[in-house]
């Protein structure tokens, strides 16, 4: 289970000379290159690169000495991880119960109509990724959405579209 390590782990050479691999190495080293740091490491890779590609998954698997299929299984189990590059801008629509009751579906439909992207999809020009969240915990502000990290409460479809427009411009 990766708890007891027999051999002293060593850092592997990174796949290329991108500086960001150093940051990922730091995370793995802090956890003693043990297998249970997999999720922490994947979080770090996604923070640095925006998504998890094959190169990164292979590097993490080899560094933490985990089977490839296991790393892939974990990366696809958790919904926060994405294996595809994201658009330049993101719009997260909360579909929690409070937002659902107050009309989150209108927001989803409105964005879909304007940008032809449903939650989980990215527009063809890679400008915008639309995501849904299971609950942002901002139920007092339902329906809520987050555009490029900025939380927007009590949204109507028009207002949200205007915000997205502003972000993309």
């Amino acid at each position, binding site marked *: 289970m990766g708890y007891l390590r027999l051999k002293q782990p060593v850092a592997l050479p990174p796949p290329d000379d991108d500086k960001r691999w150093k940051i990922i190495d730091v995370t793995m080293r802090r956890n003693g290159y043990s297998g249970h740091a997999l999720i922490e490491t994947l979080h770090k890779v996604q923070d640095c690169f925006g998504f998890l590609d*094959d190169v990164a*998954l*292979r590097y993490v698997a080899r560094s933490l000495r985990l*089977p*490839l*299929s*296991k*790393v*892939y*299984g974990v990366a*696809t*189990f958790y919904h926060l991880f994405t294996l595809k590059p994201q658009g330049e801008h993101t719009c997260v629509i909360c579909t929690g119960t409070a937002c659902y009751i107050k009309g989150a579906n209108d927001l989803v439909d409105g964005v879909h109509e304007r940008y032809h992207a449903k939650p989980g999809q990215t527009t063809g020009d890679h400008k915008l990724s639309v995501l849904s969240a299971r609950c942002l915990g901002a139920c007092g502000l339902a329906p809520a959405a987050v555009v490029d990290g900025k939380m927007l409460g009590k949204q109507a479809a028009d207002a949200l579209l205007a915000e997205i427009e502003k972000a993309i411009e």
Partner: protein
Amino acid sequence: MARHPATPAAAPKVRVVTLKIDGHDIGAREDETILNAANDNGIRIPTLCYLEGLSEWGACRMCVVEVAGSPKLMTACSTRVAEGMEVTTNSDRLQRYRRTILELLFAERNHICSVCVSNGHCELQSLARACGMDHVRVPYRNAAYAVDSSHDLFRIDQNRCILCTRCVRVCDEIEGAHTWDVMGRGVDSQVITDLNQPWGQSTSCTGCSKCVQVCPTGALVKKGTAAGEMEKQGGFLPYLTEMRGNR
């Protein structure tokens, strides 16, 4: 992965307990599961994901039994026996549940026996017969899955997979390669090799065929078999585990 069963060798002092299974008085070691105790006494409990020699997974829920005093059903494969336990393995309610679970499995993917290479040698099929599941009431989901024939010797047909993870466990626990794992979650789960790449391109697969032999359905098969020709040889597994335990 799931926990390994407690090895008898590691537990020197094991008490023997008595319990009742379906009204029969039975003696069993306290580290045994209900399933083991029942099997040793000729009481058959249907199983699907369970396989002797592999860790317990407890996912197919076919082996659920009623234990007196417990409001919840227990899986016989993962529950240890206890002194004075009263177990019912085959009530009308349990039979109904098992039939429904089988129906859900049949409807989940594509299990058309007549064209399947495992027809007549399939555990899902024989279980359906044994449990009296003669028709499926829930609608078929009819999702199309890929068939991967890239491996030189074997083929995987995801349409026949019931996600019992026997292949994953045997590859990890017995062969030690961990070529297989499960990706995604929920209804979208699927078994994969390496980074979800074609089996033939897998760098970790040793081609040992253990996964094929333990697969209960026609999902993992030898190439070149026609309908009804694929007979699995799973008998190696208890032998292998025992030999390893003795080493």
